[in-house]
């Protein structure tokens, strides 16, 4: 692999005293701090707010300070502005759980930050006198309950007020960070894959193994998406299905052993693969925990290693694609912005694959897409509603807990968290997939709010169960071990291809001439449910599953109908809301990736577009699908 990983790129460019204002203003991105301490970087809302931010996600225990060093060229008074927000203010509750201090040389500024304003804004930190030379600037979390900071400004102009308007702020930010007008060119590739979840990894690795040069662009520091240790959704769906019984070999090579591999092994316990899986489970029984299990269950390192081992792949972690440049209706290049440094890179390519889940690339390129449920009159689907609407399956904010050796403490979360009582609380020791919310909300633009509501629920419920409920004694030694801060999304934009797969295609087993991978998961639709006596936004979901016979999904669902060089793999392929219920699980999306990777390699060989593969070269794709692209190494 060409090593272009952005984990530790020159952070120093991020602490930029701006020459145009004679070093009067110093702009610091919080996520660019030299030492992030216990704070984590959250980029989920980057498309909305233009930048990633730092989050003090300490599960109720204050996280370690983040700190950086700032060079002060001229001594004197500086006014300090901190971009932050009171993250529970959208619910009109008090309590300011996200409060934190900003320390200058270990001395706190007078205001406490994160205490006001529902929206991101610049909070006035007052003025301080700074000496010439290096000073230490720190973020000091006060609660462990998700305080957040986007950026800090030190200005010698005491009357200066930084802009809050997004467009002005973006221009201001670029200027302050001295970012060039044009992004740096990061190469030209046969295939640019945007999104490093299971579908994206499989697309990139497959294409690379078949000879294509690939850029894999992922907006998190780890690969795996929903199956990473950041989200912890287990891999579901069956692989190695007829008629292309080798599809899924790469998914298998990724090697995340867990719930479904165990189930497969139990069906045929004499096979060598089964015996090896059973041995792993015997030695590591925690791997049976499908969702919200220990971080090691999700094998981030193994996924990274497989990608890094590919000579033809250039991997760009921590890079969020923000723009697409179109030429003659085709994507010519995409621009990614580092979530750590703000630096921008341009990736040119012949072909692009949208594996973002949210259909971000398709959206940027102007691809046709759909959000929400189609009406029955439109699709004729048995489970479609009478009227079309925007309901989607929600985002999971999973969590887990561990038994400790002694009684442990969890803070009071009133009044800011969601309030529970004996009737409404959930006395579970973990929050699985069904801790799902936001079904009526925009999964792209409102993701911070959706995730935050999940946090308010998880913390409020845990506080009640552990500290106040009738069963609190059972929870006295139990401690929260993990709560997701990256939401596990199920559905947002679905990009439209030449075929839009419908429910009845699957239920009636309608055969398409261009069948590819086989989906096996039941048509599994989630709906929000409401606890008894609870009037707020739902936070649990129920699954309505219609079992199916294994079904081959047509190739024409895997490319855009109006952007000629755009593939899709993952939950954003061309299906209706109902049909999404079956294809969205990750071993299935991995097989999509294998198919798209193969098709991309054929496109390269024939100098063709995705649609041409269906029209002219489908037999070759069938031949490729017959062969394993992965080597799980069981034998």
């Amino acid at each position, binding site marked *: 692999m060409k090593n272009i990983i952005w984990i530790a790129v020159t952070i120093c460019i991020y602490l930029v005293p701006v020459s145009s204002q004679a070093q009067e203003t110093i702009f610091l991105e919080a996520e660019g701090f030299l030492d992030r301490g216990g704070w984590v970087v959250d980029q989920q809302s980057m498309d909305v707010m233009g930048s990633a931010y730092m989050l003090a996600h300490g599960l109720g225990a204050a996280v370690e300070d983040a700190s950086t060093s700032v060079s002060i060229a001229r001594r004197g008074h500086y006014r300090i502005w901190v971009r932050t927000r009171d993250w529970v203010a959208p619910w*009109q509750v008090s309590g300011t759980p996200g409060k934190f201090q900003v320390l200058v040389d270990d001395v706190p500024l007078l205001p406490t930050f994160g205490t006001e304003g529902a929206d991101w804004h610049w909070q006035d930190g007052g003025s301080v006198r700074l000496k010439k030379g290096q000073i230490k600037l720190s973020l000091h979390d006060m609660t462990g309950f998700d305080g957040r900071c986007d950026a800090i400004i030190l200005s010698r102009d005491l009357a200066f007020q930084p802009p809050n308007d997004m467009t002005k702020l973006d221009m201001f930010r670029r200027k302050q960070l001295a970012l060039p007008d044009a992004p740096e060119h990061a190469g030209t590739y046969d295939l640019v894959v945007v999104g490093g979840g299971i579908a994206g990894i499989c697309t990139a690795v497959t294409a690379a193994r078949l000879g294509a040069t690939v850029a894999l662009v992922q907006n998190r520091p780890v690969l795996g998406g929903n199956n990473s240790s950041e989200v912890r959704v287990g891999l579901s769906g069956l692989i190695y299905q007829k008629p292309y019984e080798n599809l899924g070999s790469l998914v298998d090579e990724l090697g995340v052993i867990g719930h479904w591999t165990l189930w497969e092994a139990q069906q045929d316990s004499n096979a060598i693969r089964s015996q090896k899986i059973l041995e792993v489970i015997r030695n590591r029984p925690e791997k049976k925990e499908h969702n919200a299990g220990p971080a090691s269950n999700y094998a981030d390192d193994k996924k990274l290693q497989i990608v890094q081992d590919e000579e033809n792949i250039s991997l760009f972690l921590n890079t969020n694609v923000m723009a697409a440049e179109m030429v003659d209706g085709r994507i010519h290049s995409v621009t990614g912005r580092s979530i750590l440094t703000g630096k921008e890179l341009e990736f040119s390519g012949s072909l692009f694959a949208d594996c973002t889940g949210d259909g971000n690339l398709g959206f940027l390129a102007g691809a046709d897409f759909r959000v929400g449920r189609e009406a029955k009159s439109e699709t004729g689907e048995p489970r479609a509603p*009478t009227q079309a609407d925007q309901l989607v399956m929600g985002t999971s904010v999973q969590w887990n807990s561990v038994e400790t050796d002694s009684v442990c403490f969890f803070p009071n979360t009133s009044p800011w968290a969601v309030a529970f009582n004996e009737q409404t609380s959930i006395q579970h020791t973990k929050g699985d997939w*069904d801790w799902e919310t936001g079904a009526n909300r925009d999964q792209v633009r409102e993701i911070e709010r959706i995730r935050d509501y999940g946090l308010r629920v998880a913390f409020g419920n845990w506080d009640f169960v552990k500290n106040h409920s009738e069963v609190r004694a059972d929870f006295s030694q139990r401690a929260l071990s993990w709560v997701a801060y990256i939401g596990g999304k199920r559905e947002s934009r679905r990009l439209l291809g030449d075929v839009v797969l419908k429910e009845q295609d699957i239920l009636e087993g309608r055969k398409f001439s261009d069948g590819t991978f086989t989906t096996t998961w039941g048509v599994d639709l989630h709906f929000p449910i409401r606890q008894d006596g609870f009037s707020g936004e739902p936070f649990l979901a129920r699954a309505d599953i219609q079992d199916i016979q294994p079904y081959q999904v047509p190739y024409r669902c895997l490319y855009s109908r109006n952007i000629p060089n755009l593939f899709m793999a993952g939950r954003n392929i061309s299906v209706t809301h109902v049909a999404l219920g079956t294809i969205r699980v990750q071993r299935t999306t991995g097989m999509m990736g294998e198919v798209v990777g193969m098709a991309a390699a054929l496109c390269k060989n024939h100098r063709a577009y995705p649609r041409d593969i269906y029209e002219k070269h489908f037999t070759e794709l069938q031949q490729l699908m017959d062969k394993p692209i992965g080597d799980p190494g069981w034998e």
Partner: protein
Amino acid sequence: MVMLGSIDGLIRSEPLPAFTHITADSVVLEIYECYDTFGILDGFRTHIITPVCEDRLCHDVDVEFYWDVLGNFSHFTSDEEYPLTKQDHIPFSEEDYAKLLDILRTPSPAFIHLRRTELIAEPLNHDDVDGLTGATAHAVKKDMVPGAIYTCYTLWHIAHGAIHFKILEHTRSKLDAPLIDKMFSIADAEAHYFLLDHLAPVQIKNYLKRFTPLAATYEAYFLTRLMGRMPNDMLEKAEVDLLIPLFSKMENSVKNRLLHIISENPKVKAADAHQLLRELPLGSVEMDDKIIKLLLAKSGTKDVGILEEMYDHIFEDRIKMGKEVTEILKSLDKTYPQLKQKTKRYRRSQIPKK
């Protein structure tokens, strides 16, 4: 769980099934409507006879299931002649029945994540004596009647499966004035959200006076959904008047929309909008500015009293405005000479203190 009327209130049901439902085990269920003493739809029932064991070694289950109009499982009855049984045909005890009822009323039992085939697994070795798969075995057992795992699992999935959605769809088709009125009258958020999601926009407009008192007691999400169901052209002055007092309960996106609607509607006067002043400061300078600008745009010479009130509120709560609004407030006396004292005080308040 919504209890529309008492269980005993299910006094009558139609002779013909409202619809049929086929379970995952291919058992055909006929679902009947039930009515209360006023003849208004009150719930649904069905008779279930189904095998529950993989090996058919146990007796079939024979029970009557009841749901409310929102498809929430209510309760079940069984015939003394055909009691539910556990392993080895041991009849359910009273405690077992009570436990089963609890499980069936639980919307999210621990086994919700498991498929039937995952309930029992072959032990991986001799030490692994726990028959239940996964790390949730302990929790799963908590939500099971001992010796009747498949019964609990099968019946819960009937109670909470696709039939729930079919009932919702059926109830939606039966929404008439008496049923709507009944659903408004009960103290349950789920019924109110159901109305919100399933009444046509014009009906929501007509029932707005019933919705707004609920919105005042519910969380902001209710108002978001309420506003989401009504297009702008449906929100005329009468509707705006009902919504303005709920401003503080609204999410920001909804607040912005309402402010836009107010600004676009000439029938909404400064006197109608001035109660928004009470909401300041909102924690967002932009939003505070919007309200002040809106009020100024709506005001005329006869509204000087309202503008005086505006200044008083800004002084009292030391509200910081944005640059543009600050400049306007400094010189408003040019338009309204009556505000000379107020603007003078405002200008003084804007001089930075040393």
